[in-house]
């Protein structure tokens, strides 16, 4: 069971993403994404909204399927910038890995 953490969204801002909560989960991005893969990218965006850090880290590799093609950002009806959200999550995960490498 994922536990909601309302602080995570603020943490993501340090990685250049401030539109996480603008997403209203319509799924347009997942429908247009050429990956056609497990509700990507909405699934990741949803976990970010919930602040389900564990879920994101468990499935972190999925983030790198993204082509940065920008179709989702173009079509998102809420201007939630899903493509940039995926990039922001990549940055957060990379930072997490780097921290772990240094320990």
């Amino acid at each position, binding site marked *: 069971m994922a536990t909601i953490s309302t602080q995570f969204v603020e943490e993501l801002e340090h*990685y*250049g993403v401030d539109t996480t909560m603008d997403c209203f989960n319509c799924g347009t991005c997942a429908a247009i994404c*050429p*990956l056609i893969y497990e509700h990507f990218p909405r699934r990741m965006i949803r976990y970010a909204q919930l602040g389900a850090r564990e879920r994101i880290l468990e499935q*972190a*590799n999925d*983030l*790198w*399927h993204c*082509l*940065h*093609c*920008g*179709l989702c950002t*173009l079509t998102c009806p809420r201007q939630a910038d899903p493509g940039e959200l995926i*990039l922001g*999550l*990549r*940055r957060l*995960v*990379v*930072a997490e*890995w780097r921290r772990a490498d240094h320990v």
Partner: protein
Amino acid sequence: MYSPKDIIDLLAANVRRTRNPFGVPKRLMNRWWKGLELPARADTLLYTGLMYQAAPYIEQTTSMLERFEDSKWAPYIGYARWMPNYLAGLGLYLMADGKEKTRAAGTLKNIVRILQSSGIRFGYRPELDFYSGILLYDLGDLDGFLEHARFVADRLQQAGVRRLITVDPHTTYALKVLYHKYLGTRLEVKTYFELAQFPPAGGDRSDTTGPVVVHDPCFYGRYLELSEVPNRLLTGLGYHCVPVRNSGPFTSCCGGPAESISPKQSREIMQRRVEELQATGAPIVAMCPICMGNLRKSGAQVEDLSTFLARAA
């Protein structure tokens, strides 16, 4: 799929060491300009970002990666940093296809011809022509990207460069948008085809020209909204640009960006796009070395935009 962490670590280490992601020394990679006698003017520079030059290495790397994906060797990619001769550096240089290298050089020479015949005054300074770092940005290594970008931007600034003419979408986007957004760099960046000018087409050229289908790269079609320009140029030269499902802002990705992490997925997406393009029955026009390399894997006939334009130059 390869572990993104391993790939990122490998590429980041290469960029740090050699200022390009393949670890191939620039003096070996960037030789196309020799003998062209381009002036070393500083204010307006042709800037390749080494993407076309890198194409043969990308192709070599990905064909290896594709062979090993999901095999028991895949996890060892992480050690490539300690095996520079295999996946990076000199070894890669020697393995890469010579024909491909010649083709890349030809594309850049065509672009020079196009600019010259359009009356554009520009210079080229190989020592200032760096990789943009865009791959690190795309992969989420913002720190690595910024470190490299700062290095590049500083060099350009010190040399007094104010205007750049770019040749591929990735470098264009990096310099025009990302350098400005993250570093505040003030450079005037234009693609070569935005500057291209041809005298109006005289007479019927339909025997030399014909139908073509343009594959808009994501960065030009969507992010930079430039698709109108190549279309206009080609139409002006007498080509018939056959409309394709998904173009302009809605263009389909060629799948190329996924090739380092998941070559299989990249191939699937590429095949879907090639089908869309081939449904028109016309030869395909690409304008990005990544798209070009990826679409060609299908065996389809793909030519660079510069090839078409250079015919009129």
